[in-house]
């Protein structure tokens, strides 16, 4: 995909560009707010990544300007200010996601890919289907290969989150934020156990192909078994 990276720290920008290119993306880079604004308003991007603190025009104002021009490209804000309320400010300004520095590259990549997916107009779905797994959001029932799976409410939300982002890497932080609404990272990996519980319900009884994968150092992914 075509990504616009607006980041004034040259070293950080360099390794982000390298990483994104290695992952098969095309990257345009702007090193200040005004240059970023020009690029964002003239070219078409799939995702825009904006640093919160920028020379000439700061990140939040830049996001506001882009949104004022009716450009709805998904925007991810990067910031050293990692507090919840800062996140809220960023999202209010019109950004779609917010990532606090320092972050792992896999976290950034996962979020960019999820953001890109989200632009596809989100129809109000009443059911989700991934491979042989299907979820009815109204009756809150889950089936795999036609067999109903009994899930706890939290497990249901976790699976829903994963299914909506199927075939993509979802990080621990994304799960904590999206499923539990926590903006901190418990040092012990509590999410792992939740995932393995879920796995024991959706994968184990069905033998054959696994659907729920652990991506080491990155997170988890629910992949279609087709």
């Amino acid at each position, binding site marked *: 995909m075509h990504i616009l990276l607006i980041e004034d720290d040259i070293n950080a920008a360099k390794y982000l560009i390298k990483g994104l290119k290695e992952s098969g993306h095309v990257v345009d880079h702007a090193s200040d707010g005004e240059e970023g604004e020009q690029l964002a308003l003239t070219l078409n991007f799939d995702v825009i990544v904006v640093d919160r603190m920028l020379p000439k025009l700061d990140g939040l104002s830049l996001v506001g300007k882009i949104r004022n021009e009716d450009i709805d490209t998904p925007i991810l804000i990067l910031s050293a200010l990692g507090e*919840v309320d800062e996140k809220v400010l960023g999202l209010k300004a019109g950004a779609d996601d917010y990532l606090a520095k320092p972050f792992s590259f896999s976290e950034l990549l996962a979020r960019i890919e999820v953001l890109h997916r989200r632009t596809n107009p989100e129809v109000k779905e009443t059911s989700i289907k991934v491979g042989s797994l299907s979820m009815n959001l109204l009756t809150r029932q889950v089936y795999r290969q036609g067999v109903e799976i009994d899930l706890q409410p939290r497990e249901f939300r976790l699976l829903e989150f994963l299914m909506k982002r199927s075939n993509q890497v979802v990080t621990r932080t994304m799960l904590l934020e999206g499923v*539990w609404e*926590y*903006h*901190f*990272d*418990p040092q*012990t990996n509590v999410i792992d156990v939740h995932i393995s519980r879920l796995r024991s319900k959706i994968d184990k009884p069905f033998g054959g192909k696994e659907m729920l994968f652990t991506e080491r150092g990155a997170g988890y992914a629910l992949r279609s078994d087709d």
Partner: protein
Amino acid sequence: MINLFRLTSFRIIFIYIILLTLSIGLVAFYLYWSTSRDFQMRVDDEIIQESTRLSQVYKRYKEVGLIREIQYLSRTPNPNLYILRDSNNKFIAGNFSDTDSLWNLKRLDEGGVLFSFEKKNNNGEIIRKYYFRGKEFIVRNKYNLIVARDVSYENYLKERFFNTILSTSLLIIFLGLLGGYVLSRNFLNRISAINKTSLEIMDGDLSMRLPTSSNNDELNQLSLNLNNMLDRLNKLMIGMKDVSDNIAHDLRTPLNKIRTNLEVTLMSNPDLDSYQETLKEVIEDVDGVINTFNSLLAISRVDSGSVSLKKEKINIKSLIEDIIDLWEPLSEEKGVVLNNECKIDLYLAGNKNLISQAISNLIDNSIKYGSDKNIVNVGSKKNKDNIIIWVSDTGPGIQDEDKEKVLDRFVRLDTSRNTTGTGLGLSLVASMIKFHKGNIELLDAKPKGLIVKLQIPTQ
């Protein structure tokens, strides 16, 4: 010599002395002026009465009668002085004949006269000076009559009055200036002592403290406050030093591990798979280091009371339920029983994220450091204006002497066991509770184990 006028206290005292002296002088002058005017008017009235009487005598008995009357008055005891002279200034009658030598005549309006007389002894020395006030009448262009009254005593009183005012004012000014000087010098001495100490502290001797005295005046309070500030700064600096020492120590360990790992991989002529394996391990180790930094940042952000940490109304019961929901699978896997003892809805104004993280850290510790068949209870209750939240376990507990230490940064008690952790979990909890103006208590559970009790004000 100290420049007194530079001192506020001295300037104030000086201005007050000037104002006080001016007002005393004004009042005294008014008293002086009004009493002397009253006195003069009384004397003038009596003299006018007497002269009116004498003019009637003259009308009825002519010159002979007037002379006779004056001669008669001069022989009898009389407060008045009479002098009757002819047009050549020759003495005719009266009780004061020595007219030439004594007169120091000053003529006022409407025939008023002032004159004085010096009484001398045989050697010609002046014994006493008399002052007279009176009126002069010209009778038919032939005679000159003076009726006067001795006002020496009144003049004397007036003089005394004036001198007293003058000397009193001078005394006030003198004492005031002296007092001002002494007070200001005392003040200045204390200020310069403070200045001197401040300079020494600035030069690097942070153990120095400003001089204080027993009297609890503003200056002393200032010194005490500054000393308290210095104590606090010193404490913070020592804390900072400890923290940076600990950071250095704590970072060296994982960095060494990373280095060795990389070195060994490089030496062993590896294939692609083991390269990848090593890199994944290194990423995990580096993540640990980043976690340490994140925790440190979180602590200092909470400690500095960052403005973006908003408070809202939180239902503690559902907050605890959510956290238990997060931890329950892990505890079950580890064979730990995790109980929720929170039965009723309790509300407090706080930062949801911070309180969740605090409870989460405590549960993490209880699971991590607890023994087999560990039971972890989380609960809360209301106590007056506070909400009490507790996390208890049946683990080994913490020795009394370690209870305070364990809240400090980078303190890990059980170093023998290979537990992971930054040593910042409890410090973070302490900071978060301090942010909410609450307190944290570590208690012993019966028969064994640890209870961490958080007390947070509802407002």
